């Protein structure tokens, strides 16, 4: 998550390069991890001035991990001689980067970046409070406040989310259970968006999402159905699709197949776990048996790439353009993990390329949203307003840039307050 906050480019890189992850595959991923000890070496050959960044294995795929330097975003596990740092330690729990001695650093700039990955957000919170970590990003405002309250060296800095960053549930349309539109629509009706926003995103600091673009987007289609919580409608739609509790076990079945799906979510992320529980509770009431399954980000990416999933709870950021929609929803889209295919939508894409008038193009994009809204290839949950980063202000200075959002500066530009200590 940290890398996501470091820059928008990082986020994009992750998703744009999901193909890279897919190409690597599980075997490739494992081979990388197996070779990690080979990279381990002493980090003490230079005076160490590290920043220790805490993150969760549930939200970080180290294969996608990039950090923003003064010269742009650089892949941590990339190759090439022009990289400003070398990896001095690499384990499944830790990555340590050492900037080259020739790199332009002041004596009070950090010369080393260490990533520490934790299983759960609670463990990360403990590490923050005990100052085992200098910096992290916490999506959960309550967690950020808890750290700050327990250790006054940490101040939470709210950072407004990028536009169109939406929490959604991706359904695998290759799964026969989830292929019918009515079933997906029923699931969207059955999930109580309002409860999620009010009770889980405490204070309701999120907007319920209807589609990929938020209301501030010029491409937002206000005519979309909201799929307000309506379990009766959900049951009706499922019944229309042939799903009934014929054996009285509380779970719908159709042709002897019970309605059971797995919901993958980012391991250790408190909000995701709470949302997964809420979805489970909501769906079990309509007879859908959901088994939430926490996985590391690497595994989620791998399973997305391999289409080995039923439903996945993820965050995704859409650009305000056609390409972003096509990439995710078009049959040939690089990130169409769902296997969604809709001819109307494909036709709109064709029309879009044929018309030159931007207004018409915008109308087409809105129409595409209408298709997505009707088809519910995914269930859009909410657009969160804020995330929070925490910095040990007792140790570091100069970590925010001058922008209105107060984004994080490149780590090597931070200033260590007492480099000698």
């Amino acid at each position, binding site marked *: 998550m940290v890398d996501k906050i470091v820059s928008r480019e990082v986020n994009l890189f992750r998703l744009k390069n999901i193909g890279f992850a897919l190409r690597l595959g599980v075997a490739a991923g494992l081979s990388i991890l197996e070779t990690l000890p080979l990279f381990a070496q002493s980090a003490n050959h230079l005076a160490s001035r590290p920043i220790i960044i805490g993150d969760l294995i549930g939200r970080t795929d180290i294969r996608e991990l990039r950090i923003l330097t003064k010269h742009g975003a650089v892949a941590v596990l990339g190759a090439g001689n022009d990289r400003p740092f070398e990896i001095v330690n690499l384990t499944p729990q830790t990555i340590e980067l050492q900037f080259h001695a020739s790199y332009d650093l002041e004596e009070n700039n950090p010369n080393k970046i260490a990533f520490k990955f934790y*299983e*759960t957000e*609670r*463990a990360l*919170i*403990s590490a923050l*409070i*005990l100052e085992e970590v200098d910096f992290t990003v916490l999506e959960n405002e309550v967690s950020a406040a*808890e750290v700050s*309250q*327990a*250790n006054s060296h940490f101040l939470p800095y709210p950072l407004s989310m990028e536009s169109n960053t939406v929490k959604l549930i991706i359904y695998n349309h290759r799964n026969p259970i989830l292929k019918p539109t009515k079933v997906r629509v029923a699931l969207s009706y059955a999930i109580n968006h309002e409860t999620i926003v009010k009770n889980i995103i405490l204070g309701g600091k999120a907007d319920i999402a209807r589609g990929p673009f938020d209301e501030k987007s010029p491409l937002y289609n206000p005519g979309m159905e909201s799929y307000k919580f309506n379990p009766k409608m959900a049951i009706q739609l499922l019944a229309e699709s042939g799903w009934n509790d014929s054996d009285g*076990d*509380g*779970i719908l079945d159709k042709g002897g197949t019970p309605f059971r799906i797995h919901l993958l*979510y980012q*391991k250790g992320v408190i909000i995701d*776990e*709470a949302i*997964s*529980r*809420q979805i*489970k*509770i909501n769906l*079990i*009431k309509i*007879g859908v*048996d959901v*088994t*939430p*399954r*926490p996985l590391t980000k690497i595994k989620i990416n791998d399973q997305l790439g391999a289409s080995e999933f039923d439903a996945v709870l993820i965050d995704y950021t859409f650009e305000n353009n056609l390409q972003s929609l096509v990439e995710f929803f078009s049959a040939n889209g690089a990130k169409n993990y769902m296997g969604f295919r809709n001819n109307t939508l494909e036709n709109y894409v064709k029309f879009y390329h044929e018309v030159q008038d931007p207004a018409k193009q915008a109308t087409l994009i809105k129409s595409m949203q209408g298709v997505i809204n009707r088809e519910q290839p995914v269930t859009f949950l909410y657009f969160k307003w804020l995330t929070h980063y925490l910095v040990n202000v007792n140790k570091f200075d100069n970590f925010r840039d001058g922008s209105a959002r107060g984004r994080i500066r490149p780590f090597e530009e931070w200033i260590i307050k007492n480099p000698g200590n």
Partner: protein
Amino acid sequence: MFKLSDKIKIQHRLLTRLLIFSILITSLPLLLTGKVLVDTAQESIQKTILDRNFEFTIRSTRLVDFKLNTARDIINFQVKNPSIYQMSKSPVELAINTIVQEFDLFNKISVIDTVGKVIATTAFDDQSSATFAANGVMANVMRGVSYRSDVYVSEEHLPMLDIAEPIKLYDDVVGALYAVVDLKAMWDLVQENVVGSKGEAFIFNRAGVYIAHSDPKKVYAKQTFKNREIIDKIALEMNGQLIYTTDDGIEMVAAYAPIGQYGWGAMIQQPTSEAFAPAHSMRLRIIQFMFGTILLASLIAYLYSKWIVRPVDHLVQGMERFSQGELNYRVEKVSNDEIGTLAENFNDMADRLIEYQNTLKRTERLETLSKLASVLSHEIRNPLNSMVINMQILKREFSKEPLNRARVENFYHILAAEIKRVDQLVSDFLLIARPQKLEKTKTALNDLLDEVLVLHSAEALKKGVRIEREYEKKPVCVEVDPGKMKQAFLNLVINAIQAMPGGGKLTIELKNSDSVSKVKQKLKGSYAKISFKDTGTGIKKEDMSKIFDFYFSTKENGTGLGLAIVQQIIDDHQGKIAVQSKVNHGSTFTLYLPQE
């Protein structure tokens, strides 16, 4: 008669005494009251704080107890829920997930069947339930025994507690409801009971391990409470309050109490420096008020004493001036009280005294005149006899032929000398008998002395007397009647020359007031000092008291008026005269004349 300085001392002593008395009379009750007030207030505040902390602690233990009982009640209630005891997966999952969602007290709930299989769990990663199912506790629960573990710290550094209840269908145990209670849910309770900005509230288990602490860092860091005495008391289910010093050397006011049957303790403590700050502040304010009041009382006492002493002061000053010879000075009546009456009486007394003095003076003068007349008649008789005899001889000489002119002239001179002597006697008599009014003018005594010495230097030389002047360079100027003072100086010079019949040295010393040893003479103010020191015969001890008496003289031809006149003149000038003498070594007559 007491001296001026004594009066001043008395006056100051009176003011001081009055002042001290007044301050004491106001301060002592105030100090005593203040002390009692401070002690009472401090004791009261301390007791209030101790009681408050104790109440908070008790309340805290009840809330924690309630919270834990709530957890147990929820579990107990759920095991009676048909959704649970029917052991059907979906209803069970719905029930337990709803509980976890609604109550932050539960970290995880699992339903396990009699063979240890997890029917449903809220943990989406179910390893912990599997662990529980595998351990020996399960067997007891399946026999219908409730279970509660000790507090343990999770990998995430959070205090946890396991509870398990058997699920019964009728009387048969069909499974167990196992819950991991997240004791972090109690942290808010602890936080609510923190008193002051530096206070602490915490809960610890039997081993002293913090389960909850207002400084969560201590829980995360797995720190322990180390006061064995309190831990032991908690183990004995005792509660109390105390003031103790932590290992960090901070004095704390603390209250502790056990929590239910868990063997845990709750404690609320606050540094005494902060807890008793209101008491200290109050004490400080009372002390400040007391000292302020004492200061004000002292000021009032001072002014009051001054007001009381002022008339006495006036009275003393009046007496002092009166005693210094200002007989016409009267004391101002500054009050209508006893002191005012005293002033009036003093003024009456002064009036009567002057009256008596005038009467006395008249009497004394008459007595003196009588004595003088008697002495004068005796003194005049001798020259008159001598004149009569010489006149008879002269008559006989005139009848002789030839007239012996030399003898006649001799007798003539004798007669003239006797007449002159009579004339001198009469003049001196008049000087004493009829004191003339002084005609004072600022006069340089140096010049006055020189005028006298010019007249008599020849005579002194003739008699082998050397006169030495030791004047200050700066002229010594005094308000005197020059004629009278010259007379006094003349008498002393003549007296000195006559005291050295075989010759000698007369040293005349003249000094300004700055050089005069006033201490020795006990004089107040500025006095010029003129001393006449001879190396003559000196004065016998028995004669010292009589040398200023009229007509007392140790010389054959002395009139006995010289020194008496000197004293008269010096007295008229409010001066002093002092004599030091040693037989055969000489005498020193010292005059002190006021310069202001």
